[in-house]
């Protein structure tokens, strides 16, 4: 830290003449954009603002706890943050502590990369029933997201259902299988991960026996990746039961599929055929993918507790696989269950009144949102601009692309005189005296790792914002 300060003091004169860039949201999109900008433009100064006191967004709060390897990218992001011309400022909320027009006034460029945090709803009857839960919130709950730590999940009953929207040939979020895996995984394996203590306690008391995964379309349209499916199929004490009827004629189409879809479908077919050979005991849990079903309404008892889901059966019509449409057949089906997770996608929130969102994303042209004279140019990257699709790699590609456009624009002028965070700080500190810098995060990080060590896990996350601030300010 001292070294960084010295380095900054030493270099500060040269940075004053460079462009001031503000990035809102310290997730992968923001960090990848910062990585590209600092690599190509030495004179740039980047301030990354984040709503939470801690960085890394969905890497910290979205990636499943049993996937620590995926989080290794944090090391690359940390290197970016430790550069003298990159600053992290946590616990700052856009639209509350500071407004977009103020950021644009004091920065040469503002990049919004605050993701998509709201989940889409089905809009069907009884969706407000107890134990109908947004999968995104459940993930936040087991990963220690402060706003989800108090989520009420009742594991008292034995059945569960999952609703997954499927989009044709598109890599979508991996949530459904992540959640199913966490629910079905032996608790001894979960213990070794950085899953939060409250989630571990609740899950260890769960008597859950079966998880259904319900999808509107068929096996050829599944949205999970082959990696997730392979893990699911390998879970200890868990048997996957497919509905053979869903796979009629699928094998005939396989040879003509592009490689990724082909390998994924082959893995499912292999599992369908293997099913019979397994023997069960009372420890066995069941994972049951159900295709061609669209949720019609949730069924509840007198206390508004979930008892089941009424589904409409569907079929695909059309000759070409890519152009098939999903239509109801008129038949109905009921799954009895006491807990349901909804995972049909997310949308972004309107963080600032000046921001216009359409269909849950900020409209943009190659990342450029708006360019009005006198104000810093406005850009968007990551899920806020693309919608919630793809894995980290896709966010990386998009962030580099947008950063490239930013570079072109920033390089076309050398007249930089914006005040940057010096000015913004004056505005923020009027109502918020708890801005957390990188040094503050390092203290939280160390505390979490120390707590984890005691319990034999990589870290025990601090789940309250107040506690985070207290640790950072020590």
């Amino acid at each position, binding site marked *: 830290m001292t070294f960084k300060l010295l380095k900054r003091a030493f270099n500060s004169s040269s940075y004053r003449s460079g462009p001031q860039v503000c990035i809102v949201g310290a997730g992968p999109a923001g960090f*990848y954009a910062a*990585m*590209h900008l600092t*690599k190509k433009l030495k004179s740039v100064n980047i301030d990354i603002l984040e709503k939470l006191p801690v960085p890394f967004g969905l890497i910290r709060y979205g990636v499943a706890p049993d*996937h620590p*390897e*995926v989080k*290794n*990218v944090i*090391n*690359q992001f940390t290197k970016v943050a430790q550069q003298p011309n990159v600053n992290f400022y946590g616990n700052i909320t856009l639209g509350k502590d500071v407004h977009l027009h103020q950021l644009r006034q004091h920065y040469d460029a503002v990049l919004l990369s605050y993701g998509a945090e709201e989940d889409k709803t089905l809009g069907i009857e009884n969706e407000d029933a107890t134990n109908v839960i947004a999968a995104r919130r459940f993930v936040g709950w087991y990963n220690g997201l402060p706003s989800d730590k108090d989520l009420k999940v009742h594991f008292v009953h034995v059945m569960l259902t999952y609703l997954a929207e499927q989009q044709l040939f*598109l*890599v979508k979020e991996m949530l459904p299988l992540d959640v199913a895996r966490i629910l079905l995984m032996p608790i001894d394996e979960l213990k070794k991960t950085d899953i939060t203590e409250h989630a571990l306690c609740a899950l260890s008391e769960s008597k859950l026996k079966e998880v259904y995964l319900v999808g509107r379309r068929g096996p050829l349209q599944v949205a999970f*990746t*082959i*990696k997730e499916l*392979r893990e699911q*199929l*390998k879970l200890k004490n868990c048997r996957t039961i497919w509905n053979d009827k869903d796979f009629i004629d699928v094998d005939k189409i396989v040879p003509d599929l592009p*490689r*990724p879809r082909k*390998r*994924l479908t*082959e*893995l499912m077919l*292999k*599992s369908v055929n*293997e099913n019979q050979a397994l023997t069960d005991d009372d420890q066995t849990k069941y994972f049951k993918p159900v295709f061609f079903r669209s949720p019609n309404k949730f069924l509840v008892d007198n206390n508004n507790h979930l008892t089941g889901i009424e589904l409409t059966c569907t079929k695909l019509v059309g000759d070409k696989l890519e152009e098939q449409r999903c239509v109801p057949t008129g038949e109905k089906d009921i799954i009895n269950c006491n807990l349901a997770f909804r995972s049909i996608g997310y949308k972004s929130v309107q963080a600032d009144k000046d921001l216009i969102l359409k269909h849950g994303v900020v409209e943009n042209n190659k990342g450029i949102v708006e360019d009005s004279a006198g104000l810093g140019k406005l850009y968007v990257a990551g899920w806020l601009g*693309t919608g919630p*699709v*793809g*894995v*980290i*790699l*896709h966010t*990386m*590609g*998009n962030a*580099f*692309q947008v950063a490239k456009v930013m570079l072109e624009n920033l390089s076309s002028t050398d007249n930089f005189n914006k005040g940057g965070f010096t000015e913004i700080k004056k505005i923020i500190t009027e109502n918020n005296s708890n801005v957390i810098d990188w040094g503050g995060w390092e203290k939280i990080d160390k505390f979490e790792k120390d707590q984890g060590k005691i319990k034999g896990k990589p870290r025990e996350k601090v789940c309250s914002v107040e506690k985070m601030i207290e640790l950072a300010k020590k």
Partner: protein
Amino acid sequence: MLRNLLKSVTTRNLRCSIKNNGITSNFINQRSIAPLSTTELALKEEKVKVTFVLYDGKKLETEAKVGDTLLDVVVNNDLNIEGYGACEGTLTCSTCHVVLKKEDYDRLPEEACDEERDMLDLAYGLTDTSRLGCQITLTKDLDGLEVKVPETINDARS
């Protein structure tokens, strides 16, 4: 460095022996068969030339140690390939995607295991001769190897 190498060789063998219990092991992975020879070669610190050709045609030529993976080469030589190796060689991303010439692809001593193929399936610009750089271990035979690094732009999405 040597310790690191030994460590990486061991973990890789472990990883593949675990992962080979996979549900669709429709080919045999060679990796677990010849780990010692790699270590022996590394002891002699033999060097080979490797060239990374970036999507814009720019060439990064470098000298690398036998026994290192292509990801090691990028990291150890601080090669300027953005975002390369996000998961640090743990087979959970595809940011170290490289495209080989057909003849090089065919002479690699180890075929891609299921888990590597799973990650490659998510990569942009997947080809029949695509591999992950973290899974290609350099041998003396591979001296002069030239690989392409595809662009990570999201043209695969609509």
